[in-house]
């Protein structure tokens, strides 16, 4: 049997990796604190309110994480224009015929597993890229609705940029409801995302998991 010779490709630049992990931490923090804000723990206590502030702290963590998340997200959009070819915005929006073909291939090979042949993509495959585009839209939605609700208790200009969403959706209740629903998108996304990374690493052996740490992937050397 012929041995496979791999070559190293530098796929994820340092800013992309930093973005990824800040984003992951923020999403985790936001989902956990957000869930608690929506469904606080039942504490039976006779203590005076002035003794504790845990719910206030949970909200505080949520808001701080939201600001970090927002600027990190903005940075990633910027990097989509100045980063290397794997980071470019073009990878995220299916606009070429070859991308459509690739998405169909991924669906057949990896998801439905009706076909078995190696795939050529090095960075995001076009289906994955498009999925991330959807997540970006959800990021945006969460930022708008979150800051929209936050605006009522803030003097700073940033949240007020999003205050228009409240009248548009008919009131805080609806905004809050949909902000909450979208939290589940992140939870479902994370399950699938983490699974698929393991899947690709296992099946393709290109070091996809470590690529988000060191930036390198390994692909078959073309002869």
């Amino acid at each position, binding site marked *: *049997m*012929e*041995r*496979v010779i791999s070559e190293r490709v530098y796929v994820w630049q340092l800013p992309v990796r930093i973005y990824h992990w800040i984003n992951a931490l923020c999403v985790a923090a936001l989902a956990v604190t957000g869930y608690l804000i*929506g*469904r*606080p*723990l*039942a*504490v*039976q*206590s*006779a*203590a005076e*309110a*002035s*003794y*504790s*502030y*845990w*719910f*206030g702290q*949970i909200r505080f963590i949520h808001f701080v994480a939201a600001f970090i998340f927002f600027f990190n997200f903005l940075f990633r959009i910027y990097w989509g224009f100045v980063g290397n070819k794997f980071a470019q915005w073009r990878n995220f929006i299916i606009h070429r015929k070859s991308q459509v073909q690739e998405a169909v291939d991924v669906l057949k090979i990896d*998801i439905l*597993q009706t076909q*078995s042949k190696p795939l050529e993509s090095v960075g995001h495959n076009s289906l994955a890229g498009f999925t991330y585009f959807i997540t970006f839209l959800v990021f945006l939605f969460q930022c708008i609705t979150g800051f929209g609700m936050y605006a*009522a*208790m803030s003097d700073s200009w940033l949240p007020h940029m999003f*205050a*228009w969403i*409240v*009248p548009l959706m*008919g*009131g*805080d*209740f*609806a905004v*809050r*409801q949909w902000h*909450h*629903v979208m*939290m*589940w998108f992140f*939870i*479902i996304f994370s*399950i*699938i995302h983490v*699974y698929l990374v393991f*899947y690709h690493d*296992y*099946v*393709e*052996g290109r070091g996809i998991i470590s690529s988000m740490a060191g930036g390198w992937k390994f692909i078959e050397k073309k002869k």
Partner: protein
Amino acid sequence: MNENPVTYWDEMKRHGYSRRDFLKFCTWMTAFIGVEASGVGKVVKAMETKPRIPVVWFHFQECTCCSESFIRSSHPIVADVILDKISLDYTETLQAAAGKQAEEALHNTMKKYKGEYLMLVEGSIPTEEDGVYCCIGGRTALDIVKEAAQNAKAIIAWGSCASNGCIQSSKPNPTGATPIHKIISGKPIINVPGCPPIAEVMAGTIVYLLAFDRIPQLDGLGRPKAFYSRRVHDTCYRRPNYDAGLFVNAFDDENAKRGYCLYKMGCRGPVTYNSCAVIKWNNGVSYPIQSGHGCIGCSEAHFWDNGPFYQHLASFPGFGIETTADDIGVVVGAATVAGVAAHAISTNIRKRKLIKEGIENGSVTEKKGGE
């Protein structure tokens, strides 16, 4: 109708109010409308010099709770002067005139004070079937509103019905009930939501218009900022319990007795903009949360559809009444985990050959390694 302009102060004197009562009323009103203390003079002057504003007050799809609230204002001058004696040229509920006389009074006002009269609307307007679901004097509410709005100086939408549709427009909204601001455009419209709105808020809105002759500062939903810029939650006396994470978990638990936050009992305070916790009700006696019941958000749009009232998250559209987004999320999440597990198993079966080949190739590399 008097030809010489009668001012509010004239009218108050005639009713036997002293100068002292009058000034107290003005100071009190100035405080409510959120104007700085130096604004008292302006309010006093306006009440002394400005002729009364002619007012027509319409009742459409509503329960008259707004009127009821208004006439129970804690300050007698409000009911006595603004509502009872001076301003109202037309209002179905309180006028003595009926039938043809009433219609005549309405038309006289609209003609005589073209562009000057204030139009107050209580109730939503049905739009289905050309608006036949609400007719007065043989004409539809839709017709009447459009005609009256044409020459009105400004429109105040009293209560949730007129400003966001309230119960008439809740699902499935058979009559096509619609709030005023979705029917009339090109006129200043002030929304004063609530079911009903607080009497002092209603009076304050009118006094502001009188005193300053302009529309008060409004928020994104057309509500006067003086009364609707703060959430009930932000001004609630139970707020410290919220921040401390001390919540009532059931209406009969210890925490309820201790007066903890009603957030988990579905209190809509955090998403409701109103002055209930500040001005309170019934001459400042209490408000729902103070009486141990969560806010139901009656001044917010679609509050009937955002139920159940005792549930923090609304039931998710299309599912059972107590199914929240969280319930659905858990099911979808579990399904995802199951799907992922199934996929992992499938991978090991269908890609067995590929994985085996990969391992063999890798092993070869290892054996020959060290190149």
